[in-house]
C-alpha cells in the first residue's frame, strides 16, 4: 500500500506539465509575432524564396559537418568536439593547395574545374587521414577503459590542438603558396572567388548564384554517396552492426576497430569537403571558424536525432532555414537564441531528436 502510494507521487506527470506550459507560453506570446511574420512573408514572396534558398545552401554544408558528429556518435558514443576544428583545417588545407596551384578567378574553366576537383579530393583525404590518426592515437586507447568522459575530454584537447595548428598555419609563408595566407597571421584568410557568382534565376527577382548551386550540388552528391555506402555495402552493413551492438558485431567476425576507423575516415572526409566548400562560398577562412560551425552542426545532429544519418541531414537543413528566417524576420542578434530555443522545445517533445529512436540513444 505504502509502496504504491510513493509510486503515485512519483507519477506526477512533470514532463506533461512542462509541455503544457510551453504550449501555453507559445500560444500567449508567440502567436501575434508569428502572424506578423507570416504576413511579411506573404507580402514579399521573392524575398522569402531567396531566404529559403540561403537556408538550403547553409543547411547543406552544416549537414556535411553534422554527419561527422553523428557517424562517430552512432558507433562509439563519443561527441567528437574536435570535429569543427577539423573542418577549419580542411579550409586551410584547401586554401594552401589553391595557392600552390595558383588558381585565380582568371584561370580558364578547363584548368580550374579539374584542379578544384583535385583540391577537393586531396582535402578530403587530408582531413580523413587526420581524423583516423587522432582516433588511433588518442581515442582508441581510452575506449572501453574507465569512463566515457576520458575520451570526451581528450576530444576537447584535440580541438585546442587543431585550433592552434590553424593559428600556426597562418604563419606559413612558403614561396610556392603565392601569398594566399596574406600578411597577417591571425587575420581571416581571403579565398580567391573561384566559384562564379552569376545569378542563375536572373529576371525572376530571386537570387540563386552559381556558387550556391555548386555548394548544394556537391553536398547532395556526397550525402547521397554516404547514404548508399552505409545502407547498401558490406562495410556499411558492418558499420550499422557495430553501431547496434559492438560485442555482438565482434562475435560475428566484424573487425570493430577497423569499422570505427572507417566512421572517423568518412566523417573526416565530409568535414574536409565542407571546409573547402565554405571557404570558397563565403570567401574567408579563420582559425576559430570551427567553433561556431561545430556548435551549429552538433546542434543539427542532436535536432535530427544523434546517431541517425538522415536525421543529421534534416537537422542541418532545418538549422540553415531557421537561421535565415530569423535573420530576415526577427533580427540577426536574436538568431542564436531562436535556433537554440527551438532546439530546447523540440527536445522537450522528442528527447531523442526528430528522427532518433530510443535505441539510438543508448547512453
Amino acid at each position, binding site marked *: 500500500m505504502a509502496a504504491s502510494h510513493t509510486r503515485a507521487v512519483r507519477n506526477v506527470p512533470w514532463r506533461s506539465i512542462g509541455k503544457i506550459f510551453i504550449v501555453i507560453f507559445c500560444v500567449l506570446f508567440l502567436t501575434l509575432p508569428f502572424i506578423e511574420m507570416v504576413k511579411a512573408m506573404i507580402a*514579399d514572396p521573392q*524575398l522569402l524564396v*531567396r*531566404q529559403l534558398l*540561403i*537556408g538550403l*545552401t*547553409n543547411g547543406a554544408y552544416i549537414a556535411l559537418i553534422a554527419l561527422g558528429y553523428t557517424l562517430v556518435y552512432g558507433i562509439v558514443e563519443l561527441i567528437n568536439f574536435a570535429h569543427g576544428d577539423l573542418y577549419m583545417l580542411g579550409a586551410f588545407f584547401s586554401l594552401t593547395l589553391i595557392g600552390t596551384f595558383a588558381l585565380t578567378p582568371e584561370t580558364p574553366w578547363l584548368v580550374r574545374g579539374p584542379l578544384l576537383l583535385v583540391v577537393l579530393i586531396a582535402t578530403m583525404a587530408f582531413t580523413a587521414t587526420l581524423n583516423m590518426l587522432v582516433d588511433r592515437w588518442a581515442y582508441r586507447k581510452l575506449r572501453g577503459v574507465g569512463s566515457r568522459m576520458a575520451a570526451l575530454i581528450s576530444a576537447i584537447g584535440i580541438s585546442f590542438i587543431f*585550433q*592552434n595548428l590553424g*593559428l600556426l598555419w597562418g604563419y606559413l609563408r612558403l614561396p610556392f603558396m603565392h601569398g594566399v595566407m*596574406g*600578411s*597577417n597571421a*591571425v*587575420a*581571416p584568410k*581571403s579565398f580567391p*572567388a573561384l566559384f562564379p*557568382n552569376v*545569378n542563375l534565376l536572373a529576371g525572376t527577382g530571386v*537570387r540563386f*548564384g552559381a556558387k550556391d548551386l555548386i555548394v548544394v550540388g556537391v553536398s547532395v552528391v556526397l550525402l547521397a554517396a554516404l547514404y548508399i555506402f552505409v545502407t547498401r555495402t558490406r562495410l556499411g552493413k558492418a558499420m550499422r552492426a557495430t553501431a547496434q551492438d559492438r560485442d555482438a558485431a565482434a562475435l560475428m567476425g566484424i573487425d570493430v576497430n577497423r569499422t570505427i576507423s572507417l566512421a572517423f575516415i568518412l566523417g573526416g572526409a565530409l568535414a574536409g569537403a565542407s571546409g573547402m566548400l*565554405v571557404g570558397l*562560398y*563565403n*570567401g*574567408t577562412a*579563420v*582559425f*576559430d*571558424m570551427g*567553433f*561556431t*560551425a561545430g556548435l*551549429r552542426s552538433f546542434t543539427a545532429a542532436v535536432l535530427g536525432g544523434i546517431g541517425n544519418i538522415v536525421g543529421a541531414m534534416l537537422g542541418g537543413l532545418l538549422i540553415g532555414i531557421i*537561421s*535565415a528566417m530569423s*535573420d*530576415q524576420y526577427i*533580427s*540577426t*542578434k536574436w*538568431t*542564436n537564441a531562436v535556433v537554440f530555443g527551438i532546439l530546447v522545445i523540440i527536445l522537450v517533445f522528442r528527447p531523442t531528436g526528430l528522427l532518433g529512436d530510443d535505441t539510438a540513444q543508448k547512453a
Partner: protein
Amino acid sequence: MKRVSILFVLMMVASLFASCGSLASVGNGSTIKIVSSLPRTGSSKGQTDSIVNAIKQRLEEANYKACDGKFTIVYEDMDDATAAAGKWDAAQEASNANKAAGDTSVMMYIGTFNSGAAKISIPILNQAGLVMISPANTYPGLTKPGKGEADEPAKYYPNGTNNYARVVPADDLQGAAAARWAQSLGAASVYVLDDTELYGKGVADVFEATAKELGLDVKAHDGIDGKAADYRALAAKIVDAAPDMVYYGGITQNNAGQLLKDIRAEGFTGKFMGPDGIYESAFIEAAGADAEGVYATFGGVPAEKLEGDAATWYANYKSKYNAEPEVYAVYGYEAANVAMNALNTVCKADRAAIQAAVMGTKDFKGILGTWSFDANGDTSLTAMSGAQVVNGKFEFVTAIK
C-alpha cells in the same frame, strides 16, 4: 634523498637570484616606468606596431631621460590580446592593469586601443591612483556624462577622481561626422549595423541619431554576431531594403570583411561606410577586392596631410622606421608627449602629482597643434577626416566639418 637535496639547493639559488632582482628594482628610485597596453597579437597589430614605434620615437628623442636626467625611463610594451581570441581579451587587459598598478615604479599607463578594454582597466588603475592616457579609445561614455549609459562615466572612477584622458576625439563627434559625410556623399537612406561591442554600438547609435536629425531615411539598425560563419541572410534583407548606404559600426576583428563580402555577393552596389575601427590594412586584406570604394571616418587628419611640427614628425617617423605610420601612430606619439611633459613638470616619482599634471594639461603645444584636456579628460581637438579605399589602400578624401 640525494635528488631532493639537489632540488633544494637549486631552489635556494633560484630564490636568491629572484630576491636580488627585486631588490635592484626597488633600490633604484630614479627609474620611472611607462607601460602601454595594446593588442599586439591579432590583426590590430599593424595599428599597434606603429603606435608603439611612435611612443618609442618620443622616448628616444628624450634619450629615455626625464627631468634633465634625474630619472631614467623604462618602457614596457604589454599585450592585451591573446592569440586564441585574435583580438583584445578582457582577462588579459585586467591582468596588465593589475600588474602595472602593483609595480610602484610605473607612473604612466598608455592605452588602451579598444574602448571595451579601457572599461576594464580604468577602474583598476583608478584605485591605484595611476594615470592612463589613451591614444585610440573613442567610446564617449568613458569620459562624457550623458553620452553613454546612465551610470557612465562615474562607475569607472570608484575613488572619485579622474585618472583617464584621451588624445583622440570621441565617437559622439565621429558618429555625427560620419552621418554628415554620408549625406554630403548623396546617401538619402542608410542601413545601420553594429558589432554589439561598446565601441561599435556606441558609434552606430550616434550615427543613427544624427542621420535621423539630418532627415536621412534609416531603414533599420541590426546587431551582428561577430563570430558567425556568414551574413548572407542579413545581406539579402539589406538588398531588399535597398538603402543607398550601409553603415557598419564596429571593428575589423568582428568579421567586417566577411560582412562586406556577403553584402556585395548578394548584389548590393551602394556605399559602405565604417568608423576608424575598419580604417586599417587588415580590413582591406580581409575583404579582398570588395574593399574597393569603402568609406571610413577617423579622428584627426592623416599623417601625410599633417602640417607644422606634425609634418616634421611624419618625416622623422618614415626615415626612422622605413614605413608609413598607421592612423593612430600620431596619437601614440602625442600620448607619450603629454606623458613626458607631465613627468618633466612634476619631477617626482609621485603618481598623484603626475596624474594631476596630466589631467590638468592646458594649452599644450603638441604636434597636433595647441590643445587642452577638458574636465572630463577629453581633448579640445575635434578635427575629423574621411577616407576611401582606392586601389587597395585607404586614401584621404576630405576633412569633415
